[in-house]
């Protein structure tokens, strides 16, 4: 099951996808914000969002799980 992880320490600014959504390659899952920059986290591959591990306002560390795609 592919996992999407944070590439850097950041705040979760917007959660775009919802659990159960079908997502395709290149779709935006969440938008992180770090150091005054917005960083969209994109889907690689396709499938359903089985679990979202973050909520808006959360702080994620590098390597933290953002979503699981089934």
């Amino acid at each position, binding site marked *: 099951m592919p996992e999407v992880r944070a590439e*850097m320490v*950041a705040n979760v600014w917007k959660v775009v996808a919802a659990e159960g959504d079908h997502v395709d390659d290149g779709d935006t899952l969440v938008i992180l*914000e770090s*150091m*005054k920059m917005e960083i969209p986290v994109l889907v690689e591959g396709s499938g359903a969002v089985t679990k979202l591990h973050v909520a808006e306002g959360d702080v994620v560390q590098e390597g933290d799980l953002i979503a699981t795609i089934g």
Partner: protein
Amino acid sequence: MLESVLVANRGEIARRVIRTARRMGIRAVAVYSDADADLPYVSEADQAVHIGPAQPARSYLDAAALLAAAAKTGAAAVHPGYGFLAENADFAAQVIAAGLIWVGPSPDAIEQMGDKIRARNLMEKAGVPVSPGTREPVTDVATAVLEAERVGYPVMVKAAAGGGGIGMGAAADEAGLRAAFETARSRAERFFGSPEILLERFVAHARHVEVQILGLADGRVLALGERDCSVQRRHQKVAEETPSPGVSAALRERMLAAAVQAGEAVGYRGAGTVECLVDADSGSFVFLEMNTRLQVEHPVTELVTGIDLVEQQFRIAAGDPPSFDPASVSPAGHAIELRVYAEDPVRFLPGPGTITEWEEPAGAGVRVDAGYEAGNTVTPFYDPLLAKLCVHGADREQALDRARAAVAAFRITGPKTNLAFHADLLTSTEFVAGDYDTSLVSKLRPK
């Protein structure tokens, strides 16, 4: 002479302002959020006040918290640095209403220049060249399409109340404009609280060149030379130099005269910067915007003129004359500033982290304005600027040599840094030749 000053900022600029304040015998008060308690600027100030949590809105952007800190410490003045509330006319007015001295231009000058559309209109009236663009705010896409046709493609789409390149985008045709407009409008609302958009004719081979001005206490406005800021990623500056390799003596004379006119048009007091675009092909220039504060890259001007700009800000705020003779300013040599950002050197994505090793370069002609030291944590809450590595040389070649050596000697472990990008920049054919425009970074780092 001011007795004391509260520095309403953080990191390298707070440290830099505090350094001059203390040298002048002005009591320096720092403010800090939860995230910044152990940064050097906090311990180097005479006093430090905790103002809130890490989120900027609840600390460095919280006017009430800042004014309470000033009252508590009996600070006589407020220096805003750059960013945060530096160009907020309301905050400047609140500082003045509280009986304090605002180290900056009048709230009226900030307001006139803060709105990019008003500023353009005002400059046009004052005889400063501006590029074709919208004279009224654009808030809907249909109007944007009509206006873009009148202005002529390609156009640049910007937030009227914006800055820092946030939400800015170029469009070559109507489809591109529709996309750029949506991006600009959503960013404008989120970051600047206003959806108003400005369209301007896009200059393809442009150098971004700005002029440092200083409005004296007696009302005279001086121009202290230009800075070339064409090395940009995501419309944000990465390296600056003075003099600009792309500006001839004749063009410099015209640009400096126009910058003085711009300052005089708003009765400008203190340090400010008139940003222009220079068309590398035709050698003409247009007004872009005015920054009513100290600029990040002010050290390069200081290095070639020998003038401490923060000292002049304090003197002007106190109603005193400058420390130098305005008639005998003669810039000498060449200076380069490299912004050391906490970001990877290839894609320029943020890379905060805890600093385990921090060793600054030193030597002839090297100046480092740093916000951090070993043991500090770079958090995701603020901009990625770690330090400004500045060098001065007798000529551009010597400045380049010193810059290359200094970049190689700068050791930072922990956060990601763009030092490897600077090493590439300083050996790139274009930068070495001085033959570059705002597209340089995308050429060095093609996607």
